[in-house]
């Protein structure tokens, strides 16, 4: 469904060129829950944001259902973005709009009629379990409820792919579990392909079918989660798995200095 070929991206930071993505190759199949893990600064966020072109890659191709999205013109890109939604760590809801209006937003910009929007918003609020909150403003909602609104908003135009940018990192463990259960349910019932980035191993463990591990702008290992976790090759994954088991991680001096 998604095929990433030799994707490159670098930034100029204080005049120094920093390579965030050093030629990424990756295949994500339809219906997968694909987790990309790595430490901060490994490039996972840049990679995810390239998938809806919030970041423009410098080189390489991203084929989604056979079409290279980096070659899209403005209108094609806007249409594509309606099929590929994103949820965020800090939810990014419209703070001066209530829950109903937030969920209606993508439908309004897509130009749907009021009747359809009304019906669809209620459907979506039902899916995420917030039927009784439509008049509330985001500031009156808990973190988990805000992310549910964001998920409802993301689902409004029936996307095929959902991108999750550290979607549970700002939530407590119980709420994280509930949101992950919801995502998994959407994956099963709607056939939604999910690509998520996280540094929380529990998230990957709970819902991912496949996983890729990133280190310094490169993918160092990748495959079915069970296979990869059984036989971790990269340093990052070994450390993550250790810390998940509650073992003390011994870092060498250089890493501690960072």
């Amino acid at each position: 469904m998604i095929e990433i070929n030799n994707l490159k991206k670098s930034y100029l930071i204080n005049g120094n060129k920093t390579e965030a993505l050093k030629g990424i190759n990756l295949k994500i199949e339809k219906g997968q829950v694909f987790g990309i893990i790595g430490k901060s600064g490994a490039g996972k966020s840049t990679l995810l944001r390239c998938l809806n072109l919030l970041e423009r890659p410098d080189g390489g191709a991203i084929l989604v259902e056979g079409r290279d999205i980096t070659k899209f013109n403005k209108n094609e890109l806007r249409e594509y973005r309606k099929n590929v939604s994103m949820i965020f760590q800090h939810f990014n809801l419209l703070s001066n709009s209530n829950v109903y209006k937030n969920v209606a937003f993508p439908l309004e910009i897509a130009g749907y009629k009021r009747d359809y929007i009304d019906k669809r918003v209620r459907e979506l609020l039902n899916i995420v379990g917030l039927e009784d909150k439509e008049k509330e403003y985001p500031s009156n909602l808990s973190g988990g409820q805000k992310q549910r609104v964001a998920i409802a908003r993301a689902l409004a135009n029936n996307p095929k792919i959902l991108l999750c940018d550290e979607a549970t990192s700002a939530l407590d463990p119980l709420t994280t579990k509930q949101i992950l259960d919801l995502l998994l349910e959407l994956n099963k019932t709607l056939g939604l392909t999910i690509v998520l980035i996280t540094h929380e191993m529990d998230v990957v463990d709970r819902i991912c079918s496949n996983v890729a591990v990133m280190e310094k702008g490169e993918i160092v290992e990748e495959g079915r989660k069970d296979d990869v976790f059984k036989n971790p090759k990269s340093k990052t994954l070994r450390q993550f798995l250790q810390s998940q088991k509650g073992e003390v991680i011994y870092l060498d001096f250089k890493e501690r200095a960072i």
Partner: protein
Amino acid sequence: MREILNLVLPSFLDTLYMVVFSTLFSVLLGTPLGIFLVLTDKEGLLKMPKLNSIIGSIINITRSIPFIILIIILFPLSRVIVGTTIGKEAAVVPLSIAAAPFVARVVESALKEVNKGVIEAAVSLGASIPQIVIKVLIKEALPGLILGITLTIVNIIGYSAMAGVIGGGGIGDLAVRYGYQRFRTDILIVTVIILILLVEITQRTGNYFAKKIDRR
């Protein structure tokens, strides 16, 4: 008492006329400029830094000209637009043009307060730039915009008193002609009280609405 009322009421209505129309036109001129400044910023959605700095400079130059001089410079323009350089209608021209760059800056700073993540979310949902401006930027920044426009009105009330002196009429003109030149201290006091009340009412109304619609 009756004499004071007869003098003050028409002047007050002239001031109101100048303030209302100058606010209207300056907001109509300044808001698009402010939006344009935000969009063309180097971190904005359109990223046109050169054009941004040119427009920014023009705004700064206009804002740095003392108002009383701006009126004199704009006399010919008043004549072209309203056919005269005297009276409340003529004063609206320089008042609007003087306040427009102020409105542009006020709009710019209010819109820049909008959370970048929310704008990004709108982009990721396939929103176009006009849709983002109307449904995200303006809607999210509305409380700040209302406070900014309130500030503009208060400024225009002050400016209108100055415009009055060079033939615009209104409360300021009355204060100078009667209060100062004819030593009518009672008229001077009444005009000052009216201006204080006008500013006070404007500010309180603005604060009330800004607070009422703020859901953050």
